[in-house]
């Protein structure tokens, strides 16, 4: 009899494999995130009632974590496959779990855009959370502005500069970077270092990097465009630049931006390492 029960349990487990992504407490209520059969995501409340459910495409992987706010918290879902990644941000409202509105791309001139010295930044007036976004060679830490009360999100920063008669033009904002370099096999690699994250201000300096050189990845700049697909949103960085310091030599401090240069500092284009 016990043996029969064991086989039934095994059969049930095979038919309905279940992966728990963890339990999270949002505004005093605990939610559990479950993936069933690698094909369906569910978020259960404390009474085990399903608060959210969605099908998952094959090859999609998902993680969940708390996005802590000032006295509030949300649940941040991160979906990834080989080619793309997207997010969802949930909050608790009237005792139920609900999605925040996704961020929209702001027009160049917004009421709270700050432009100073020809370069400006749309600063976060509310809380921001960091989205660790894969840029193809390394991670960009993209800020997302969150208004928990209104249930909205917005770009955490957007930068502009004066572009003559054309008015303001969007340029990349500086953001934090996380990079895991690969070992460099060549005795020498070569990078073109720019003083600014643009090719239009002076010509590049040519720096030869020795195999044992110490390379620091200091910051990134990119223009981030936001998009939505279903109830998920994505941050799409473009015109990505990376600020590096080589062998702690100020002469070798500058910005790089081509695949050839990224590879030269140990960051070749590759799939995201999750």
């Amino acid at each position, binding site marked *: 009899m016990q043996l029969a029960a064991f086989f039934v349990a095994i059969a049930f487990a095979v038919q309905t494999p279940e992966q728990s992504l963890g339990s999270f407490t949002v505004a005093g209520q605990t939610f559990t995130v479950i993936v069933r059969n690698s094909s369906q995501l569910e978020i259960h409340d404390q009474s085990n009632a399903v608060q959210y459910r969605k099908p998952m495409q094959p090859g999609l992987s998902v993680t969940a974590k708390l996005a802590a706010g000032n006295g509030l918290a949300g649940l941040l879902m991160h979906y990834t496959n080989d080619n793309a990644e997207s997010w969802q941000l949930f909050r608790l409202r009237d005792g139920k779990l609900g999605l925040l509105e996704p961020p929209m791309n702001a027009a160049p001139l917004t009421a709270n855009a700050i432009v100073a010295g020809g370069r400006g930044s749309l600063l976060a007036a509310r809380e921001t959370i960091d989205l660790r976004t894969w840029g193809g060679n390394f991670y960009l830490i993209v800020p997302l502005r969150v208004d928990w009360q209104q249930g909205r999100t917005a770009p955490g920063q957007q930068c502009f500069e004066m572009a003559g008669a054309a008015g303001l033009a969007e340029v990349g904002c500086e953001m934090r970077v996380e990079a895991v370099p690969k070992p460099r096999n060549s005795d020498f690699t070569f990078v073109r270092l720019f003083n600014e994250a643009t090719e239009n201000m002076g*010509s590049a*300096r*040519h720096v030869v990097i020795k195999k044992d050189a110490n390379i620091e990845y200091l910051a990134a700049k990119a223009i981030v465009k936001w998009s939505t697909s279903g109830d998920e949103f994505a941050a799409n960085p473009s015109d990505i630049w990376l600020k590096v310091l080589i062998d702690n030599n100020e002469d070798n401090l500058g910005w790089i931006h081509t695949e050839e240069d990224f590879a030269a500092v140990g960051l070749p284009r590759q799939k995201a390492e999750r």
Partner: protein
Amino acid sequence: MKRLVVLIAIAAAIAFFWESGRNKVQTPIATESAKTESTGRRLGPFVIGGSEYRVVLEEKPRLPGSTQETGNTVVKMEIQDSMGNVAYERTFPVQTELEGFSDAWSVTATVLAGRTGTGLMINYALDSEPSAPTPENDSWWQLFGVIDGKLKAFSGPISVQGDLLPNDSASDVLRFKVWAHHYRIMFPVSVNWAEGKLAPAMRCDSCEYDVLPEDLSDRDDLTFVRLCPTVQGECANPQRTLVNKDSVIELVAGHAAVQWNEGSASGPSGDPNHPMTNEGTIAVPEQVWLKVRIDGKEGWLHEEEDFTALRLPFEQ
């Protein structure tokens, strides 16, 4: 006997007055329009096409300007035949219009012997102070020859940022050293002695020229340049090539769409304030390519940062 004495006396008188006439530009001349004294200087004689010519220069003291320059400036140049007849002339301004500056024109002349003809090469140069140093100075070159017994300019004065290189042997090609923004090319010009004309020796829209060596010893201990296999508008995948202090670097060739303009051989306007109205030019556009050989590896480079990496000269 008396007749002989009279003839000798007449000949002596003629010789005296002729010499006086010829030498009159060698003595100070006070002109009505100028407060400063003019002096004369003669270059030559130069034998061209069986005839003898002299270049006669009228000069005035140069205004010192803010840099306290000294010396003379040429205000008039004449090419005279053996009889003192003026075959060609050009006038120059005595002072710049800009206060504090000091301008001085100079003229030099030399016989240029080709394989099938001989000519008189005149070089006009303007020294304007104060001025920033340039990799190569501008000056004008004008070749004269004798066609049908008359002195003729083969072109207008050709403006060149560079120099005229000497030929090792008699040649009907003028070799101009021309500044090409980061290096110096050799631009050959053919001389047609029979028709009295000049023309570029290379017939192509965008040519490959010989280049002159440059001092690259000031480069960094370790750098690199990007080499393209060919001259092309967009070099998609240039090869990054290591250059160290011991690298053997050869400048192999230059590539540029050099524009030749022969100017007008018919002569200047005569307005001293615009002495080069009939000038021609050898103009090198900004877009130039340079073929180099670095430790045996050949390729073309053309961007500012690559020229800078090799410490090739640049213009302010």
